[in-house]
């Protein structure tokens, strides 16, 4: 091989699948929704557009989670915190866009601040009337938090279960903090009643289709970025860290830098996912910080198959589609199902859906090998 230390980004078949999924999300779905006449057999119902957009955001989050858990062995149970922080940054921008169209007609202050008798905008709300600033904050805020936490944790070799607990406590503490009214983020109700985004009405169908396309593109870019990281040298160091941290240390590598890098990147991807999520669901509240939400992300990845970025995307879509269907059809069954999923996947499907497919492929090729072996001696695999 000409370039020993870099694997190719994807196999030709991988690229084909990537482009096919991208084509479906970015071209087929918008066309089926916008251009096919309603009532036609191929028409996509309106409500499915933000739903699929939402799944794309979740899938982005799952990709970020897979990057740190599947490849670097960091099980963050607080990934939802970065998602929610990105969401809040976007929510703040959307709140400022409301202007004087709120219930209290205040041109500067959001409704909840007027309601709580605030006289002026808190300092941390300044700048969020500009999209570029909000977009910057969407990656900077989660990134900085992840950097500080990660630096403190990885430097003192906090790993495994300890790290999981610390990250869980982080998101729990943030949830408690954001529930407070005097934090200036709308307290219990969060941020909602959004009007427009970059001049487009948030509620209108074309904007929703646009947001879906943006989420799909974001998902694709996040996937390519993570793919690029894990095929690099750094990615291999991460894999080694996941499997035998002490050995990597003894070989002379410093784990802190590598872990910190992927942790911050994952936090930023989560932040962007949150920012794309908020305008599609129309609300962000402290519930997004709840530890239960963050743990759910881990199960998406586990269902799809950890350590395979495509599996994370698949898992996010499967589990969330099941959630949408079950919480509607039989709400009391959903938690049983989710709980069983956690148990079954960890016990019986350590490689998730992707693992099943691979097993099946391996068995098929093994079967073919035995057929060949009848005519020719078998080769070692």
């Amino acid at each position, binding site marked *: 091989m000409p370039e020993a230390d870099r694997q190719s980004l994807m196999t030709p078949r991988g690229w084909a699948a990537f482009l096919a999924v991208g084509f479906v999300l970015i071209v087929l779905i918008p066309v089926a929704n916008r251009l096919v006449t309603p009532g036609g057999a191929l028409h996509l119902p309106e409500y499915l557009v933000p739903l699929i957009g939402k799944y794309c955001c979740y899938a982005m989050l799952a990709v970020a989670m897979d990057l740190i*858990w599947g490849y670097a*062995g960091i*099980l963050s*149970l607080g990934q939802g915190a970065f998602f929610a922080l990105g969401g809040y940054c976007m929510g703040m921008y959307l709140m400022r866009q409301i202007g004087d169209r709120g219930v209290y007609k205040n041109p500067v202050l959001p409704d909840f601040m007027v309601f709580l008798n605030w006289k002026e905008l808190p300092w941390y709300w300044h700048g969020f009337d500009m999209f570029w600033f909000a977009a910057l904050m969407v990656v900077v805020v989660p990134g900085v938090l992840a950097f500080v*936490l990660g630096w*403190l*944790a990885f*430097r*003192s*070799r*906090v790993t*495994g*279960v*300890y790290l*999981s*607990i*610390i990250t*869980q*406590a*982080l998101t*729990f*503490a943030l949830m*408690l*903090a954001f*529930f*407070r009214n005097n934090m200036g983020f709308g307290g219990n109700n969060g941020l909602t009643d959004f009007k427009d985004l970059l001049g487009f009405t948030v509620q209108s169908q074309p904007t929703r289709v646009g947001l879906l396309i943006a989420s799909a593109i974001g998902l694709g870019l996040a996937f390519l970025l993570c793919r690029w990281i894990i095929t690099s040298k750094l990615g291999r160091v991460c894999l080694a860290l996941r499997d035998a941290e*002490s050995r990597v240390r003894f070989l002379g590598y410093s784990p802190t830098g590598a872990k910190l890098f992927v942790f911050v990147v994952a936090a930023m991807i989560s932040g962007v996912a949150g920012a794309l999520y908020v305008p599609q669901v129309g609300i962000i509240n402290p519930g997004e910080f709840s*530890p239960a939400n963050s*743990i759910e992300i*881990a*199960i998406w990845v*586990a269902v799809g198959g950890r350590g395979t970025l495509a599996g994370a995307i698949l898992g996010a879509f499967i589990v969330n589609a099941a959630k949408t269907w079950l919480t509607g059809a039989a709400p*009391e069954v959903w*938690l*049983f199902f*989710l*709980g*069983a*999923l*956690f*148990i079954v*996947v*960890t*016990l019986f499907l*350590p490689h998730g859906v992707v693992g099943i497919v691979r097993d099946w492929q391996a068995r098929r090729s093994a079967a073919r090998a035995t057929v060949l072996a009848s005519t020719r001696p078998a080769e070692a695999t």
Partner: protein
Amino acid sequence: MLVLRILAGVLLLALAWQPTHAQGFEELVRKLASDNFSEKLQAAEKLGDLGDGRAVPALKALADGLLYVRTSDQAPLIQNGSRYFDALTGQGLGELPDSEVGKVRVNNRLRGVIAASLSKLSLFSDDRATRLAAAKAAFANPTPETAVALERALRSEKDPEVMAAIRFSLAAAGVSAGALSDRLKAIEALAGTADPQVRNLLNTVVNDRNAPSEVVKAARDALASIERQLAIVNIIENVFQGISLGSVLLLAAVGLAITFGVMGVINMAHGEMIMLGAYTAYTVQQVCRAVLPADLVGFYLILSLPIAFLVSGAVGVLLERGVIRHLYGRPLETMLATWGISLVLQQAVRSIFDAQNKEVANPDWMTGGFDLVAGFFVSWNRLYIIIFCFLMLAIIAVILRRTAFGLHMRAVTQNRDMAAAMGIPTARIDALTFGLGSGLAGMAGVALSQIGNVSPNLGQIYIVDSFLVVVFGGVGNLMGTLVASLSLGVINKLLEPFAGAVLGKVAVLVFIILFIQWRPRGLFALKGRFVEQ
């Protein structure tokens, strides 16, 4: 009619033989039932000054519009339901037709006088608690008239606690008026007590422009000393609250710490073991209410402790055998699997018991409490939980130090492979440890049911905090868990007044993140080569 008149005459004659103040009592109660409002006012006021507890029912009845007179002889009657009683003797007269009785009218002015008299009269009540309450209530209303009543009550009082309360209220009455030396003495008497009411009273004296300068100065000094005392009491109270919170955390975390120490896995379903224990207490309570006689129902709590231990312990052993043992060497997956179990358990309880909060009543011996110092109330349930928590800790320590099982547990904690090589059945130890940890959580659930409602989310409330206790204290070490939970509890409560409950929690979290920079394996980490795995 004539016969009745004669009878009434004889009755009057008989009354005349009674001691003078009793005669006054009867006469005044009769006047209370008269038609003339000014006469009624006078009578109500005099009854208050008389200090005879027998007047209380009549005064109360008049205020409530339940005082009647018999048209035949003008005798005062008290209506209770449809029956009538003699207001003087309390003798039951049965039902009387409406035509034979007339209602005594009452107005608001009269009601006011009655209320004042009643409060004075309760100083002379036969019931000790009523007298004590009245003596304390008089504090809020320090008028010269109450002072007179208080002084008279003091002469007849025998109970030391009531006497102290009366003296205290007398001092309060003396602060506002009277001779200079008396006022100074009264202020001095008050300075020793750190009661918020005293502070208000002294504040009014300090702000009183008409008060002599000596009095104002004395009041100011007294206030300063009270402020100091209150500050101390406040700190003690916060520390007690902190220890109380800490003991709850300890109860919740100790089982977790043991299983984490032995098996290196975090049981995310640990909170649900607590919840199962609380629901066991609820079920046992319901069964006891149905089966046991009423005076024995209070013992359901004692009964539910071992049952909760068995229920949660059995679920724990099942979990270990069924799920966790298949995930050895994969601690992160174990977390996820146990999280799944916790979701299933929560939903199962919600399906069986519905999602409403269940109330587990405090037995009689756990309700109420006592004033340790003025303004510092110690409630029995908190105190019992602290005691129970330390008792449990002692039992665990004995199990760990004095039994073969404990020895094996410690060996597996220190070095699993070596313990196995020495012939210790590690798989069995794991199952038993998990059962013990879960059983302890179940007992913690019984304790927690006494300080809050029981809901399917009960476990989730404490779980993050108990994880932090384990991280802070280090694993496999009871001392670490004890120190960590108590200090986290106290830090939380001491921070609360400055930062508020939520920011206090956030501060504690930041503190722990910084703390593990210094000691990544907790306060009391095991040392040796086995630690890094």
